[in-house]
């Protein structure tokens, strides 16, 4: 299941990057394109191992930068930092709580663009920044954070469909029933 999980996460990352570059409805509406990868990284780091986190950071980052004017590799770093940090403190996190998912989602979605911009600026890039960037950052943080519970729901549904159905066992067994009376 672990390999399948990794495969699903990578496939979703690939589709997410494609959706971000091909469908600009939200960008036209509110002037912001939400990054779908940090939230996915939160899901991956809470539900999978370090190999999955590393693969998602490298592949997701490269796919994103390939379709963007970002310097190649810029998007790997924030994803890697998010993934490894959550992995480090995974044993302290209440992984099943929606509240936890939201908080981690907001933190990751807010942190990722800031670190990416810092790297771009440190390499001498000239990204388009202004007061509107604050709105973009806010929208990316909120909408990106809201995506984490969605990813959990989505993957739970997928595994429910693909996994074995859980056998419901009862302590009652008819063959062990003690028949009383004359029989």
């Amino acid at each position, binding site marked *: 299941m672990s390999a399948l999980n990794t495969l699903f996460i990578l496939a979703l990352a690939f589709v997410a990057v494609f959706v971000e570059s091909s469908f600009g409805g939200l960008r036209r509406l509110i002037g912001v394109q939400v990054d779908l990868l940090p939230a996915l990284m939160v899901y991956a780091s809470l539900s999978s191992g370090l190999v999955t986190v590393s693969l998602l950071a490298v592949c997701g980052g*490269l796919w994103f930068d390939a379709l963007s*004017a970002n310097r190649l590799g810029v998007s790997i770093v924030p994803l*890697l930092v998010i993934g490894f940090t959550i992995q480090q403190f995974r044993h302290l996190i209440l992984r099943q709580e929606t509240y936890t998912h939201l908080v981690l989602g907001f933190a990751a979605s807010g942190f990722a663009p800031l670190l990416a911009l810092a790297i771009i600026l440190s390499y001498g890039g000239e990204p*388009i920044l202004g007061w509107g960037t604050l709105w973009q950052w806010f929208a990316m943080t909120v909408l990106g954070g809201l995506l984490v519970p969605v990813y959990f729901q989505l993957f739970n549904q997928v595994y429910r469909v693909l996994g074995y159905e859980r056998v419901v066992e009862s302590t009652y067994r008819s063959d062990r029933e003690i028949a009383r009376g004359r029989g």
Partner: protein
Amino acid sequence: MKRRHYLLLAVVVVLTLVILNLSPRTATQFKLAIGSLFLPLFGLAGSGQQVAEKAGNAVVPRKDLLKQIEQLRRENAELKVQLPRLAELERQNAHLSAQVGFKQSSRLNIKLARIIARDPANWWRNVQIDLGKRDGLRVDLPVRTAEGLVGRVSEVSETRARVVLLGDPTCPVSATVRDALNNVVDQGVIKSPAAVLDESFVELNFLRNATAVKPGQLVVTSDEGGLFPKGIRIGEIVDVRPVDFGLVHVARVKLAVRMNALDDVWVMMP
């Protein structure tokens, strides 16, 4: 963490550092190669769009179609009348130009391209089009629509190309402000957007004669930059304001092209 984890982390960090420090040329080639993985999805999205358009066309009422046909027929007839006159003017122009030794401008050679993707990051303004090296594209070719200038080609792969849009700092354009009589009022450079969220405004910097620049005046390309042919419409002046304690003036320009609603563009071939 286990030792194995630290090792994995170290490998990923080193790999990231290597990728980040690739030479621009190598990085571009990697980008184009990785980006080509998305081609099937782009194709699928394009086909889906075409199917949706066809489905939409199927439900257009016959009455509207007939009306459109009639309108096109009328326009066609008008253009047929104008064509011989324009051919005659062109012939006269060529004759007079030859007499005064004026260099003839070459015929407009354009290729239609479809926008297949936009930059997923919020801090760049560029799009990808479905033409590439195999269609004769190369870096720095101007891109436009019927309304005006869109930008320039910045990266080219075999089957697609990246176009930097006006307003992106990596697409500076030398521009001329013209008045109603088509006289040159001032010159400047467009190299930054006027607002982060609104793609329809850019800033025209380094104005020399700002007092003469008025709202509503036309902004077109000048040939000073060497990349863009002279006279392509860019937009209209919205307002002018002094910056740096009045030492320099900057004008806000409303672009002629709606950048956030681009579907098809023309690449101006050499």
